[in-house]
């Protein structure tokens, strides 16, 4: 029952992300826009390019969707509203999200198109750099919680939220999460201008619809992960836990989408250099600082 409810909520969340994304791009708030876009996509022919790697081409959109759903399975919305409270939850989120990389690799290689392939390999090259910026901040978060249980991570923030306790980790995780969901200004994988859609370029019709749905689910999952790791999850005064979770997740999603609206796309080489030379040392410093803090103010 909880599983069905949470999957429904994930679907609603993905829909809201689509509405918000449309709003940040077009400036108009249209609740029906995703429905119309969806119908349009489903009505179109789903073209298969010449000489594709058929298995990869077909599997990639579904793998993207599945990895987002699996990551969402360990995200608690209230103390009880969680699909499975795994003892290795914080690690499992990361394990599921790594398959986004595999999916995009497949989507890039599969259609036998130059733009798609550049997009796919580009994502791989970038992810090796900022995957560390996802794992290392999570390490610092679970160090404070002294548990990999995601519910325990939220409970550990009862006094001070992690965004105040470890702001450096929050900034790094937030940027890395945006890059993982290839949101602007980090949308190097699907760059509209330079790669004509990148990994999305060769997809059309129903396959593209699944791909886009997977990405929307990924965005809302990453926003939810940010909330439970850094913004105290369901905690907050007056309102019930589910309301706080909803407000926070939607707020984080909006900020993620708006941030891209007002920034130019970052250069690939710059992002790579900053991740390796600035991001990773800062993430290590964050672990050290949190380690000292945990010992001094338990």
């Amino acid at each position: 029952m909880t599983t069905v409810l949470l999957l429904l909520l994930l679907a609603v969340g993905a829909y809201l992300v689509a509405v918000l994304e449309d709003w940040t791009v077009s400036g108009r708030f249209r609740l029906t826009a995703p429905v119309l876009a969806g119908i349009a996509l489903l009505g179109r022919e789903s073209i298969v390019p010449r000489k594709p790697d058929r298995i990869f081409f077909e599997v990639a959109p579904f793998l993207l969707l599945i990895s987002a759903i699996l990551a969402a399975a360990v995200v608690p919305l209230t103390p009880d509203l969680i699909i499975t409270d795994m003892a290795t939850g914080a690690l499992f989120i990361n394990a599921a999200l790594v398959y986004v990389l595999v999916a995009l690799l497949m989507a890039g290689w599969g259609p036998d198109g130059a733009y798609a392939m550049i997009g796919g390999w580009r994502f791989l090259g970038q992810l090796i750099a900022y995957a560390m910026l996802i794992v290392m901040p999570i390490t610092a978060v679970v160090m404070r919680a002294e548990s990999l249980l995601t519910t325990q991570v939220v409970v550990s923030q009862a006094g001070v939220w992690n965004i105040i306790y470890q702001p450096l980790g929050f900034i790094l995780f937030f940027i890395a999460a945006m890059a993982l969901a290839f949101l602007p200004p980090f949308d190097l994988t699907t760059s509209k201008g330079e790669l004509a859609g990148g990994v999305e370029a060769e997809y059309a019709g129903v396959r593209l619809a699944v791909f886009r749905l997977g990405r929307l689910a990924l965005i809302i999952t990453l926003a939810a992960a940010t909330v439970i790791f850094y913004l105290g999850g369901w905690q907050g005064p007056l309102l019930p836990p589910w309301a706080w979770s909803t407000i926070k997740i939607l707020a984080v999603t909006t900020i993620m989408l708006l941030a891209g609206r007002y920034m130019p796309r970052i250069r690939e080489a710059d992002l790579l250099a900053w991740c390796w030379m600035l991001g990773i040392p800062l993430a290590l410093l964050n672990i050290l600082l949190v380690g000292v803090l945990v010992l001094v103010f338990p």
Partner: protein
Amino acid sequence: MTAQMFFIGFFGLAGVWFGIVVFRTFSMVRSALALLFSQTALGAMFLSMQAEFLGVLQIMMMATEMSIMAIFMVMFMMDPGGLGEMDMTHQKRLSLGAGIVSFVAAVAVAVFVDWGPVASVSPDAAQQTIDLGLELLGRSMLIFETAGITILTAMIAATAVAIQPVKRTREQ
């Protein structure tokens, strides 16, 4: 218990099958991803055996590692797409022999070693994580640190080999 045995067997066979697929395809990317799914099946076997942390870690690590391997294979192989159907295998007899010998050795170790009393109940997942952490920072520390340094050295060496030496001219 029977369900558990079924899943262990299922994922075991899936692992072996994807391992075979690695050598049945000419495409380097397919080959690398087949190896990835073989390793993922092993991770699922860990999960079936209630070793949660090891399973999740295996599933996570292998995805990144095999993807990196894929890009390296595409960079260094002459025919990464496999469209030329170029044979990438060599020393077939030697490798066949080595494969059979190591398979027999592995089975022999599994069958003949006295594994001691088998635990009937595994500790819960959180306890396993704690035990594993203490083990890694205890007597196994030296082994893991050595392995880590070795891998790092290999990575730096591979990168150094891959970089093409550039002759600097006056214009640069």
